[in-house]
């Protein structure tokens, strides 16, 4: 066993070598981060770095985030987890993007997709401009359907692969929907049994500071002082280390993203054969939107709204109306959403991951992906000594401030393109005063050309240009190419892509099994590793 008690003086004498990483908090953020660090730095061996996770036995995990990005597949691989085990134990199902209903004008036919597959031929040549030119003539075709076959797969409730496809391989790009409580338990088991993480169930009562302002240790009720060279704050909304101890200010973005409350409920399926949607369904409502996520054994449904534009009673009624007869007022969980993030995430020898760093409405499932990206960067760039930590900390802060800003812009984009007028919530969202300048600039450029890779040149981009295209053209935005028709000089290529997409749609929808059918087979047989 590793010693979890290291003397701070010993560390100094060794030039501040990073030997022990202490993670405070044991939700998904805590276990995922501890797991990535432990897996990369061989915590199960004597030469490896010690990873200690202290978790309060009394504070329940918040359990947000049931939607993931395809990055989750590489995260699970990095942790050495089997996809079959994960799907079986976390009630997980496949997610192939999001369907946005009633976001443009609120009518019944109003929907578009943000799929996970890039537009046909996107890597070789962007066909958005050609689609726009065609659309001017024909009008009314859906962008996501014309350039991507994944919408048809989702509309038919099909899975992204077959039982013969190896673990983590995709026929069609996919992510997961998961039960976050079960996922945290699953991660804990894997991390403690396979990755050599020391798990301490205890309450942190005091934070002890070293002379240089670093955290030297955290005092626990029954396990004494737990020392370490890096402390990872995964304490959720309480932000015990970064927020409470270091007093790093919180930067609210309420003025951009108005949503401040979530009402969440679990909804059982009609019966064992009910279809399981393989995409997140997001339906616009008078003062926000409702998420609908299909797991194997239940749906997770929730209304996120702005309390400025809707009373809780009104919100409950809207949720009840959406859910129908299975609505049970007593089981509705109310979760406050304080949109925003800390002004920095890494201070001294403490870095925050998860809700302790910040939170945004779950419109594009950004919570878990930010945890994954943070965990990855900490694991990959973990400094060897305390001396080099400040350099990594600065990089981390720059990277994640950029990412939060980009996510905020991207979420706001969904609102500014809406034409809904049924509530001030929607019209106020279009008020230029509420739109960040960075997004205004992009919108100005996109008046006359479609989003392109050169709009997103950082190594730290979270959404590719294709995602912006899916939202813009899904919501009926018109980029005006009338002054630039000379740029549309390869119609043959474009028509080939449209035809190829039609062909792929045919092939895929006739060969893929239904989402439920595949999930049942995984329960029975499992995937092979190759």
């Amino acid at each position, binding site marked *: 066993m590793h010693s979890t008690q290291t003397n701070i003086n010993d560390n100094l004498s060794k030039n501040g070598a990073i030997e022990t990483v202490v993670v405070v908090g044991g939700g998904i953020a805590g276990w995922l981060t501890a797991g990535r660090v432990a897996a990369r730095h061989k915590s199960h061996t004597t030469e490896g770095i010690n990873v200690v996770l202290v978790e309060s036995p009394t504070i329940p995990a918040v359990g947000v985030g049931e939607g993931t990005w395809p990055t989750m597949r590489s995260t699970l691989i990095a942790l050495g987890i089997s996809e079959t085990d994960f799907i079986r134990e976390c009630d997980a199902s496949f997610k192939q993007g999001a369907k946005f209903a009633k976001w443009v004008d609120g009518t019944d036919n109003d929907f578009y997709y943000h799929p996970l597959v890039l537009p046909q031929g996107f890597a070789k040549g962007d066909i958005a401009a050609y689609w726009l030119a065609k659309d001017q003539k024909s009008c009314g075709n859906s962008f996501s359907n014309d350039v991507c076959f994944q919408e048809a797969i989702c509309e038919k409730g099909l899975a992204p692969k*077959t*039982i*013969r*496809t190896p673990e983590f391989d995709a026929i069609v790009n996919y992510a997961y929907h998961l039960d976050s409580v079960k996922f945290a338990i699953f991660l804990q088991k894997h991390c403690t049994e396979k990755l050599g993480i020391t798990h301490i169930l205890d309450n942190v009562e005091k934070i002890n500071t070293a002379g240089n302002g670093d955290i030297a240790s955290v005092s626990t009720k029954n396990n004494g002082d737990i020392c370490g060279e890096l402390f990872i704050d995964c304490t959720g909304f309480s932000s015990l280390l970064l927020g409470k101890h270091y007093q790093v200010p919180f930067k609210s973005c309420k003025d951009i993203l108005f949503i401040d409350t979530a009402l969440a409920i679990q909804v059982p399926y009609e019966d064992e054969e009910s279809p399981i949607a393989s995409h997140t369904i997001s339906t616009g409502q008078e003062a926000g939107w409702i998420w609908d996520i299909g797991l194997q054994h239940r749906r997770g449904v929730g209304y996120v709204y702005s309390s400025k534009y809707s009373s809780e009673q009104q919100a409950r009624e809207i949720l009840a109306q959406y859910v129908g007869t299975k609505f049970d007022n007593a089981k509705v969980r109310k979760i406050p959403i304080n949109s925003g993030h800390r002004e920095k995430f890494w201070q001294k020898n403490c870095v925050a991951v998860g809700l302790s760093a910040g939170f945004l409405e779950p419109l594009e499932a950004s919570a878990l992906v930010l945890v994954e990206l943070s965990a990855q960067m900490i694991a990959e760039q973990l400094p060897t000594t305390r001396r080099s930590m400040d350099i990594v900390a600065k990089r981390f802060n720059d990277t994640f401030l950029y990412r939060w800003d980009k996510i905020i812009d991207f979420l706001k984009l969904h609102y500014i393109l809406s034409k809904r007028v049924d509530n001030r919530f929607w019209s106020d969202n279009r008020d230029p005063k509420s739109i960040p300048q960075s997004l205004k600039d992009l919108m100005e450029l996109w008046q006359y050309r479609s989003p392109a890779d050169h709009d997103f040149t950082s190594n730290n981009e979270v959404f590719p240009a294709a995602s912006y295209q899916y939202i813009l053209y899904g919501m009926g935005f018109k980029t005006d190419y009338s002054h630039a028709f000379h740029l549309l000089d390869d119609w043959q290529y474009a028509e080939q892509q449209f035809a190829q997409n039609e062909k792929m749609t045919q092939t895929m929808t006739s060969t893929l099994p239904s989402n439920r059918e595949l999930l049942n*087979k995984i329960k*029975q*047989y*499992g*995937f*092979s*590793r*190759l």
Partner: protein
Amino acid sequence: MANLVAVDNKNHKHIKINNTLAETHGKNLHLIPAIVAEFTNLAVQYPILLTKNGDTGQFVCAAMLGFESGENLFWQNEQWQGIYLPLQIQRQPFFISTTPVKNTTQETENTEHLVCIDLDSPTISTSDGEFLFTEKGAETDYFSQVKYRLSQIMQGEIDNQQLIDQLQEMALLQPVALEITFINQQKTRLNGLYTIDKDKMATLSPEQVSKLHQLGLLLPIYTMIASLGQIYSLIDKKNMQLKS
């Protein structure tokens, strides 16, 4: 589809089985399930590979006879032109059905194995072939042989599973990556086929090799590896067919 019924000495007393016609059951198969016990026989002519069951995604061993669905290159002039006929074809038109049976006295569940016959099989005759039962209703020597063959296949399923489990546990499988250009320039890529990774075999620890040896799996493993070369004689057969 096969029309299967349980064999009994009343309804099937007068039928005969013309075993030479059993091979017609394989004329349109490009992959035929194979069991470990017949690997050395198969390897004389056919590549032995693994593929995945379409319904379950589980690995199965199979002899390869053609390059696309429906193509058996060993089926020529209405005859099987091969030295060894895979057991899964030899056994035609007989099958085993397994049904759980409640044991009322002990409250336990047993499985009952019934020999079934495919009544649509062209092997069934009233003139040529062998009887299943004697005049008195006892089993003929022929029918005993049939049952022995079926029991071999049942045992084969257990042996195969052991082989496949070990191959997966020791991560010895790899997909076959082969693009073939036939004599008429037609190209095909082998899809969904797996074989044993020779390089991985070479890196096994003494304990792992010893385990494979004790389980009697070294022979089938090396037989599979050696049989891979038969892909080239299959290509040859295909090219001959394209030329003629």
